[in-house]
């Protein structure tokens, strides 16, 4: 059968699937990825900010116990393999979405897996910030909230965009795995046709499309990060 990868019937079938199933799968992959990333940022950004501002010597130190707890929770969530996490969060998924299988349901484990990762990325971005600039803002009478919203985040935008790109491409990769729990998308096509039915050509097409998506996300993200960075000279 491996010699039949480009056999005429295999090609014909692949073309047919390309027309009938792939457009929907592409759409599902896109919206799952984008939605999951959006929610992950919604949770991860404030958490990442807390990790930086709350530490000892930060602009708004939190009790050590709280910081310890935050770090442990993040590390815990990040150490559970995604495949297992999907199954572990079934009850939560059911609570939120009403069901634990399907495309929409796959967003919940994706967010749970991604938001601690996003928090760490945000933490990294904010730590790149020149501490003297924060001090300058304090010397002008900025409150901790103003420092976060008017200095830390705006000044870190290029780095945050780069890291958002990393996050979205990683989440795209995870979303392909959710085919296992009945999540739709390119991952499902690849598994259903390639793994269960030995239609390797179809699997190949799904994988190529995933690669193309990653390339697009990365190119757009990098370009945006560079374009938004006003530290680079000779630009207007």
């Amino acid at each position, binding site marked *: 059968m491996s010699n039949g990868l480009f056999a005429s019937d295999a090609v014909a079938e692949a073309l047919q699937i390309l027309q009938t199933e792939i457009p929907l799968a592409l759409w599902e992959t896109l919206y799952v990825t984008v939605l999951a990333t959006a929610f992950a940022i919604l949770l991860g950004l404030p958490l990442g900010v807390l990790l930086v501002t709350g530490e000892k010597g930060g602009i708004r130190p939190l009790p050590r116990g709280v910081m310890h707890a935050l770090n442990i929770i993040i590390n815990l969530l990040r150490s559970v393999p995604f495949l297992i996490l999907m199954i572990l969060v079934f009850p939560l998924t059911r609570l939120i979405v009403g069901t634990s299988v399907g495309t929409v349901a796959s967003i919940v484990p994706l967010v749970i897996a991604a938001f601690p990762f996003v928090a760490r990325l945000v933490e990294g971005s904010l730590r790149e910030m020149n501490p003297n600039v924060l001090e300058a803002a304090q*010397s*002008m*009478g900025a*409150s901790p909230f103003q420092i976060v919203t008017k200095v830390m985040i*705006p000044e870190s*935008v290029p780095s945050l965009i780069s890291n958002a790109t990393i996050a979205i491409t990683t989440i795209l990769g995870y979303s392909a795995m959710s085919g296992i729990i009945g999540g739709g998308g390119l991952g499902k096509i690849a598994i259903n046709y390639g793994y269960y039915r030995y239609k390797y050509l179809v699997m190949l097409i799904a994988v190529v499309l995933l690669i193309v998506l990653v390339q697009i996300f990365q190119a757009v993200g990098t370009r945006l990060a560079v374009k938004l960075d006003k530290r680079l000279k*000779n630009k207007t």
Partner: protein
Amino acid sequence: MIEIQHLSKSFQTSDGTVEALRDISLSIADGEIYGIIGMSGAGKSTLVRCINMLERPTEGTVTIDGRDLGSLSDRELRQVRRNVTMIFQGFNLLMQRTCLKNICFPLELAGMQKDKAEQRAKELLEIVGLPDKANAYPAQLSGGQQQRIAIARALATEPKMLLCDEATSALDPNTTHSILQLIREINVRLGITVIIITHQMSVVEEVCSRVAILDDGQVMEEGPVGTVFASPRSEAARRLVFPEGELPELPGEPGERRIRVVFNGALATGTPLIARMAIERQVAANILFASTRSIGEKVYGSMLLGISGGEEKVQIAKDYLQNMKDVLVQEVTEHE
């Protein structure tokens, strides 16, 4: 009026307690340019941060216009900081904002309307001489220009006091000079009290009226710049005034008297001053030490002259030199 009384600051480090400042008492009058000079590690930066409470002193008080800053809440302190602004060695501008938006920043923090803030920012750009840089980003500016924007930003909230933390240390001599001129102009025009923290003698000589010498967390000497630099009494002061080495080892005739001449922006002329003095007053001076720089047409720095011939000649020399504009003269008495 700033009153610093018995201020001490210590830090806890893994190697134990470090006493950064010890029992510092200073008072700085309204409208003056006050210099705080010291080597690195002397505690200058900590001291200036205690003045606006970026660092809370361990002991002692800082009183500005009768208000004890140590007793204020965080919220009240933020209000005070609009009156006591600061510029830095590294400029510390927001790199993702245009110059105009950088100047608007403290006004934004204070809750001023956007169009009013921009109007004010434009006026400030005029004051610092960069009206055409409103829409430029800091990265497109030179160091001197960035410091001008930082000064404009510091002036935005119409402060009564400006703290300069090594504000010229990252700049070349000519740029340093122009920034100091701007600071002086601001001091005169707007009546803002200025505190300059520096390790450079030349900066203090050029703009300050009074100076405190800080060493190992303590004020070693304090007073008018001319007096302190003309006859430094403490070891630390002498190290700053004579970085190349001390007086006693300098050569000199026996019985020779010494006078210190401080040039505080005196106009340089075609004929050298000392030569002219010899011709016009018949006083021959032996130059024992000199550290002067001319910036534009003006001379800054100091010179140590040895004059033989007794009291009379010394008096003639002092009178002659004192008649020059922006020259300070002081007889150096033995201080060992």
